[in-house]
Structure formats: structure tokens, C-alpha cells
């Protein structure tokens, strides 16, 4: 029983990072119809932001969290300007390829700057599992505007919504969330490395596909569930099977429900 609880707790911890990163993928896709392949690198940037903050600024957990999120948001806004805004609204593969390219460039930039071995993140404080505030896409002015842009970008623009601002806002929020996830994974495993976005990003992407991108709550639930499932497989079966389970679930779901469990927006 103790092992079970321990594994569920671990699973929720990892799962919350999947959920948060998947939420970013889903938010950006549903608002802008952009599959942002550079999104996992915001997560990686968050972990390195935490490392830099601890080395040079503060070891206070909230300071480290803020530092990581800030670095991720800055990288996010640069990516928005360079690889998303110029190609937004074009055929979906074009921003997909543009952001993939920037993502690869960011991985190699991080490798150049920090080396290819993981850098150690000193254990600052016991990992705090944070709760993600309910994303206020419901009843604020910009929340409504974001939903309006998601459905009809042209009409929203003609009613005074600066679509470029919504684009920066959406990418910024998604990067802040990914950054926070990067900080917590960095602290949990006490390291950051240039290619850490690959597996986490891919799994989070899988969570979005399994849930479908229409409902935030669905995406978050699937993220948490995947984390718990992986932890239980590692604990009771074998940790080598962990990743196979994640992708196996994806295959099964997509065969029967190609739009995801809770429905998706189409391109």
C-alpha cells in the first residue's frame, strides 16, 4: 500500500508536468491553429533558467520558479516573433516546420552554451508541487477575445482585437507554464540538459492527442493520468516498459478515436 501511494504521488508529480506542457501545446493550437514544435524547448529553457537563477541570483524556491518562467517566456516571445507570427494562418505544416527548426536550433544552442552533459541543479528546497491556477479563458475581456480569435480570427480582428497581441499572449502563457514545469523537473532530478525537451515534449504532445485539444480539463486529466500510469508500471512491472506504455496508449486511442477522447479542433 505504501509503495502504491508513493508511486501515485510520484506519478502525479510527473503527470502535472505532462499536463502543463500538454496544455501549452493545446492552447496554442486551439487559439492559433499552430502546432508549436518549439514548445518543449520552453520547458528546457525553464530548467536552465532555474539553474542560472540558483547559480547567480537566489536559491529561494519562488525566486527560482520565477527565474525559470521568465527565461522560458523570453524564449517564447522570441520564437513567436521569428517563427510563428510570420507564418500564422498559412497551411498548418508551415508553422509546424518553422517551429521544429527553431526548436532544434534552441536545443543545439543550449548544448553549445551549457555542454552536452546535464548540469547539476543543487537541491534548493523540497520540491513543492504547485497547483496550476484555473486558466482564466472564461470570463475576462482578453479571455473572451482569445476564444473569439480561436473561432474566427478575421471577425475578432475586425472588432478591435489585436491578433498579434493575442498571439504573444498565448505563446507567453504557454511558455510560462512550460517554464514552470521545466523548473520543477529540473529540481526534481537535480539536473538540466539540452535535449530534455524531447521526451517530455513528445509525451505531453501524446497527452494532447489522446485527450483532444478541445477541453483544457481533458488535457490536464490525461496528463496526470499518464504520469500515474507510468509510475505504476515502473513500480510494479518494469521501468523499461514505462515509455512503451505511454505510446501504446496513444496508438490504441487514436485507432478508435482519431480526434482524441474529448474531441479536437480541426485545422
Amino acid at each position: 500500500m505504501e509503495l502504491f501511494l508513493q508511486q501515485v504521488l510520484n506519478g502525479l508529480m510527473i503527470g502535472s508536468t505532462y499536463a502543463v506542457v500538454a496544455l501549452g501545446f493545446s492552447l496554442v493550437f486551439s487559439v492559433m491553429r499552430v502546432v508549436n514544435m518549439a514548445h518543449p524547448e520552453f520547458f528546457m529553457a525553464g530548467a536552465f533558467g532555474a539553474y542560472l537563477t540558483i547559480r547567480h541570483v537566489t536559491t529561494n524556491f519562488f525566486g527560482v520558479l520565477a527565474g525559470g518562467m521568465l527565461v522560458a517566456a523570453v524564449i517564447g516571445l522570441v520564437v513567436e516573433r521569428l517563427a510563428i507570427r510570420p507564418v500564422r494562418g498559412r497551411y498548418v505544416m508551415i508553422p509546424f516546420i518553422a517551429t521544429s527548426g527553431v526548436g532544434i536550433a534552441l536545443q543545439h544552442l543550449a548544448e553549445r552554451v551549457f555542454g552536452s552533459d546535464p548540469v547539476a541543479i543543487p537541491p534548493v528546497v523540497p520540491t513543492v508541487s504547485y497547483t496550476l491556477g484555473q486558466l482564466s479563458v472564461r470570463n475576462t475581456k482578453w479571455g473572451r477575445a482569445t476564444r473569439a480569435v480561436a473561432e474566427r480570427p478575421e471577425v475578432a480582428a475586425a472588432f478591435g482585437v489585436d491578433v498579434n497581441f493575442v498571439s504573444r499572449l498565448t505563446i507567453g502563457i504557454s511558455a510560462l507554464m512550460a517554464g514552470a514545469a521545466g523548473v520543477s523537473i529540473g529540481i526534481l532530478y537535480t539536473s538540466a540538459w539540452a535535449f530534455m525537451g524531447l521526451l517530455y515534449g513528445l509525451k505531453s504532445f501524446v497527452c494532447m492527442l489522446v485527450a483532444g485539444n478541445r477541453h483544457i480539463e481533458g488535457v490536464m486529466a490525461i496528463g496526470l493520468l499518464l504520469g500515474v500510469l507510468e509510475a505504476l508500471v515502473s513500480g510494479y512491472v518494469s521501468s523499461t516498459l514505462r515509455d512503451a506504455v505511454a505510446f501504446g496508449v496513444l496508438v490504441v486511442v487514436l485507432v478508435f478515436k482519431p480526434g482524441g477522447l474529448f474531441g479536437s479542433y480541426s485545422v
Partner: protein
Amino acid sequence: MSLLLRVRDLEVSYGAVPAVKRVALEVPAGEIRAILGANGAGKSSTIKAILGLVKARGTIELEGRPIHGAPPHRIHQLGVAWVPEGRQLFSTLTVHENLKMGAFARGDGPRFASRVDEMFALFPLLRERRSQLAGSLSGGEQQMLAIARALISEPRLLIMDEPSLGLAPKVVQRLFEQIREINARGLSILMVEQNARQALKIAHYAYLLEVGRLAAEGPSAALMASEDVQRVYLGG
């Protein structure tokens, strides 16, 4: 009479395909003007250029200020509101939230509440539907909401794209009466309409587009009487 909108030498093309060629038109304050023409004549491209939604060459002036090249949200802030073809409501928002989006640039302070009441007075059915999702309204109700969403921004120029499209004849009749009422309160209107006969009944002046070019223009009564226009657009 002061000129609200003035368009000169307007050219719009999609890639290498020209859609609008050297179109000129004007909307004096207080008038209803109509752009008529068949499918693909360049009517929608012309108004999308005015709204800043497609790239265009030429000059577009609102009360003497050039607005071409400005992003759509800026043009809206200068007092241009749009009733899009096919309504294009925000279907996942409620009726009331759609009105809030209409007032996005104005903000939703105390003035907004009184504007909402005015809209409900103009379209009483919308009051009953205020908490429903816009996607669940009937065609006629959706058109009312699309107009209310545009009017609530207190525009100086209302641009309507095919307001009668897909509506039952009886509903169209009532709609055009309401457009005339809205105009009688002082709002200038530029309307694109395939239903030429209906449009000419309420418009003061109209432009005829043919494959992207201006083929004829004049006061509605004169166009209505013209044999060419009769033959081509009014079916007899």
C-alpha cells in the same frame, strides 16, 4: 454633404489573380450605398479591403484620413463595423458575450449596459436569448445578433456583407425595414447584396461590379430604371 468614406483606384489580387480592378466609390454621411454584382464580381474583396482584412493598393480614406494599410483592429477603432457574410458569430459565446465582443474596443463600462438595452429594444427576441450560445439561434436571430454586435460598437460606418443571404423572404423583408430604420437614425451604411431588387429599394445610390470592375453606378432609382441593369441583375 460630408464624405465619410472615399475609395480610389482600389486594386486587390490573390496571388496573380486580380479580384478588384480600379474601383472607386464613396459613402456620404447619412446614406445607404449598395455594391451589387454577381458571385465573384469582387464585392466581398472590396469591403474586406476597406476593413483592412486583405492587402490592397489604392487609397481608402475615412473622413479624409487615409486608412489603407492599417491593421483591422485600428480601422475598427476609427468607427468602422462589419456584419460579415453568413453572420460569422462567435458560436461558442453566448448572445450577451457576443455583444461584449462587439464592444471590445469601447470597453464594457456603464455605457455598455445602456447600449445593450438599446439593442434589445431594437431586437426584442435577443433579450430572451441573451444567455444562449449564439450557435443555437435561428438564421434570422443570428442575423439580428450580427447586426447588434456591429451596432454596439457605435460605428460611424456600418459595412454589411450579404445580409439577406440564407434568410426566408419574410425575414428578409423585415430585415431591410430594420436596416432602413437604423439608417434613419443617422448611421451610414455600405452594403454588399446579391438581392439587387431589395437593396435598390433601400439604398440611395449603388455601384455595379462586373468581374472586378465598376460597370455602372448611380442613384438607385436611375439604376432601377436602366434597361441594362434590369436585364442583367433584376431578371427581366
